[in-house]
């Protein structure tokens, strides 16, 4: 608990410094907005439509594979911490776990979902 108090203080100070820097810049800087300056920058061409365009489905696939890998790898950490004191059984267990994980990757690969088309 106590150590998390320090982390919490770190979060607070870590936020104060950038807020302070941006605040000082806001106070010192000139403020003369005009429509041209405020317009979206697209290399001098008038922007068409909004910036929030629809995206390629491929991004979602990679986020999906990442989600599965992330969750599983995180739960390998307690296993890795304990590994030095455990026998062969735990090692095999972890390897089975990783192989199941790899099977998902192989499936996605075989399906051609890892190609960027």
């Amino acid at each position, binding site marked *: 608990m106590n150590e998390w108090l320090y982390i919490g203080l770190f979060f607070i100070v870590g936020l104060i410094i950038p807020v302070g820097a941006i605040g000082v810049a806001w106070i010192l800087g000139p403020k003369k907005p005009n429509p041209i300056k405020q317009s979206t920058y697209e290399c001098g061409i008038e922007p068409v439509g909004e910036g929030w365009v629809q995206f390629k489905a491929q991004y979602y696939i990679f986020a999906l594979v990442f*989600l599965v890998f992330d*969750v599983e790898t995180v739960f390998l950490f307690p296993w890795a911490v304990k590994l030095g004191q455990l026998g062969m059984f735990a090692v095999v267990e972890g390897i089975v776990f990783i192989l199941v994980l790899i099977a998902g990757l192989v499936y996605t690969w075989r399906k051609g979902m890892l190609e960027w088309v």
Partner: protein
Amino acid sequence: MIPLSWYLILAAGLFSIGLFGVLARRNAVAILLSVELMLNAVNINLVAFWRYGDVSLMAGQVFASIVFSVAAAEVAVGLALVISVYRRRNTVVAEELDLLKW
């Protein structure tokens, strides 16, 4: 020190908020967001029961970890469903998906 009741009430509140979202929101993605709130409320309870019970029994934390993977699986499949429906019907509003009504 904080009594257990505080955590339980907080979790109940979060669960109810999630329930409201699931029942009331029109957008399917928003419904999934609300389901996440409900799962988190459950997780708070699990961890609180671990802490306030016998600390050396890890069942609470293990269950919370399993809930994490369930949540991940739920999001993956749920959002895939939403995207699949969107591609076929061009909508993400749950009310408009009424093919199975009759």
